[in-house]
């Protein structure tokens, strides 16, 4: 079958048929020509990569500029004098209590992730293992919450938390983050649990495990990648959350980094160098975590819509 794709005619070994390295099957000229084409693609790829990285390169360069330099007209691409102490000084600026903001982000993210996981794990396990009359409605409900976002419910959430007197607290944001990320966690872990044959669990019971033991020793190790994916994705979503925090957390010490950031941008004067330094700190860990779970993301986010 491969022979067809390696024929010299360019129309058959085209876009849709990524050529594999198989020197020797075609005639002598073809592999070299293909090699040149592949490196050509690399060049195009580099340009694409640059486009996607550009804003973050601007961010990186800006984070090391001095206040004068970043507001200089006309601007320079790179800092003339690399100001590493932006990363130190930003913690004590008058615009916002940044240490508190970082703490907020961390507490809200950890709390939201933990709560989402605790609620999602049993639901994911049970729906993957058992059939019951209300399973479809339940999964549908979960799916619909994925489609809803705090923005559309902002006024309702605001009113609810004011009535409960937990407005302007971390707890409010932990609840919001956990609830709106629950569905991804349920779906991804559900699909992992569903791949473990139920006989494996039954074998563990017959081997003398209690339900708890079979969960801890057999099921959890087997679905661990799914759990990690759920944890990381939820954590990142909480970390980046903006809209609900804006409405629900008016006090500056309670606000997360995403909201605090906007305080540096004034109508007349902006401390861009700090905005970018904070952004670097806000983005780097998240990108690293994200890269770890990339291959499971699509299936979880599209919840069965794409195989």
């Amino acid at each position: 079958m491969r022979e067809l794709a390696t024929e010299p005619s360019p129309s058959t070994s085209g876009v849709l048929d990524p050529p594999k390295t198989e020197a020797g099957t075609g005639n002598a000229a073809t592999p070299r020509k293909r090699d040149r084409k592949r490196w050509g693609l690399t060049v195009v790829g580099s340009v694409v990569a640059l486009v996607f990285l550009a804003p973050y390169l601007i961010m990186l360069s800006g984070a090391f500029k001095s206040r004068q330099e970043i507001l200089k007209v006309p601007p320079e691409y790179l800092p003339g004098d690399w100001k590493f102490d932006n990363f130190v000084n930003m913690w004590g600026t008058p615009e916002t209590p940044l240490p508190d903001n970082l703490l907020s982000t961390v507490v809200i993210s950890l709390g939201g992730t933990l709560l989402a996981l605790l609620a999602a794990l049993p639901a994911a396990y049970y729906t993957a293992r058992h059939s019951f009359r209300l399973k479809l409605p339940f999964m549908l409900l979960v799916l619909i919450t994925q489609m809803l976002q705090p923005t559309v419910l902002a006024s309702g959430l605001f009113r609810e938390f004011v009535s409960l007197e937990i407005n302007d607290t971390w707890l409010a944001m932990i609840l919001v983050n956990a609830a709106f990320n629950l569905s991804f966690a349920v779906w991804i872990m559900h699909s992992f649990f569903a791949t473990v044959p139920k006989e494996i669990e039954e074998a563990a019971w017959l081997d003398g495990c209690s339900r708890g033991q079979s969960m801890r020793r057999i099921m959890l190790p087997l679905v661990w990648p799914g759990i990690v994916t759920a944890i990381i994705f939820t954590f990142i979503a909480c970390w980046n959350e903006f809209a609900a925090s804006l409405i629900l957390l008016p006090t500056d010490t309670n606000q997360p980094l995403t909201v605090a950031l906007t305080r540096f941008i004034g109508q007349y004067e902006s401390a861009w160098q700090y905005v970018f330094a904070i952004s670097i700190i806000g983005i780097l860990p998240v990108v690293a975590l994200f890269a770890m779970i990339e291959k499971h993301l699509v299936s979880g986010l599209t919840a069965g819509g794409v195989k």
Partner: protein
Amino acid sequence: MQALPWLLPALVLIVGVVIFPAGYMVYTSFRDLSRFGKDRGWAGFENYVRVFGLDPLPTVLTNTVVWTVGTVVVTVLLSLVLAQFLNKKFPGRKVLRMVIIVPWAASVVMTSTVFVYGLDPFYGIINKFLVDVGIIDEPYGFLKNATSGFLSAMAVAVFVSVPFTTFVVLAGLQTIPHDVLEAASIDGAGKVQTYWSVVFPMLRPALAVAAIINIINVFNSLPILKTMTGAIPGNDADTTTTFMFKLIQNDRQIDTASALSVVNFVVIIVVIGVYLKVVKPMREVNA
């Protein structure tokens, strides 16, 4: 009933933080609230009448349609091309995949803030770059007027939406069996013919999912417009979502904002309905 203890934590969370506030919002939209949140009683459809009577509403609605449809269409088109590209084998493909993740993972506020800085007419680096490569003659205040600010924000929305969309399309591309493509080439189909008659139809489910999830995300998006055009006075660059936030934050009109939110909510429910009908995501769940 055996299922209940297992599902209870999730149900409590969903009911408490999604369903209840949704109901509370609908309820609020029929109440008369003071600026300080004091409930002054039943308002009937007064809030809705007020929403539909607001002067900026026609502009805002037009903006919302342009914003959502424009961003999603451009995103999907670019993603189709990019996914096709990433589906080829070339040195550095893995690195490119990782790079494309960055705008997806990064906080949208942080990403759009860079553009606010870069597009500044005086110290903006993107402006300088555009002048340096000769695309524009002199720096332009992209974010100083509503039209160009709105279009710039749409470009950023496309920028942050393309990665996810590309990965979904790529996942779709990878489900197309190789022998189908070989069969097409045996049948004498050229590259373009193969794409339109074989690949594209098989991508449709992936595209439907990507499009609908994007519609929801873009429609609900607050941070991009808030950071990029938030400083422009008036409502010429507002969508219903940012308009609603302004009603809550600046004007403290929770009741009117709730009425507007209910309208938004209905729109989203319709989109979800279309999603369920077209994509049938539940087919893998056997009840």
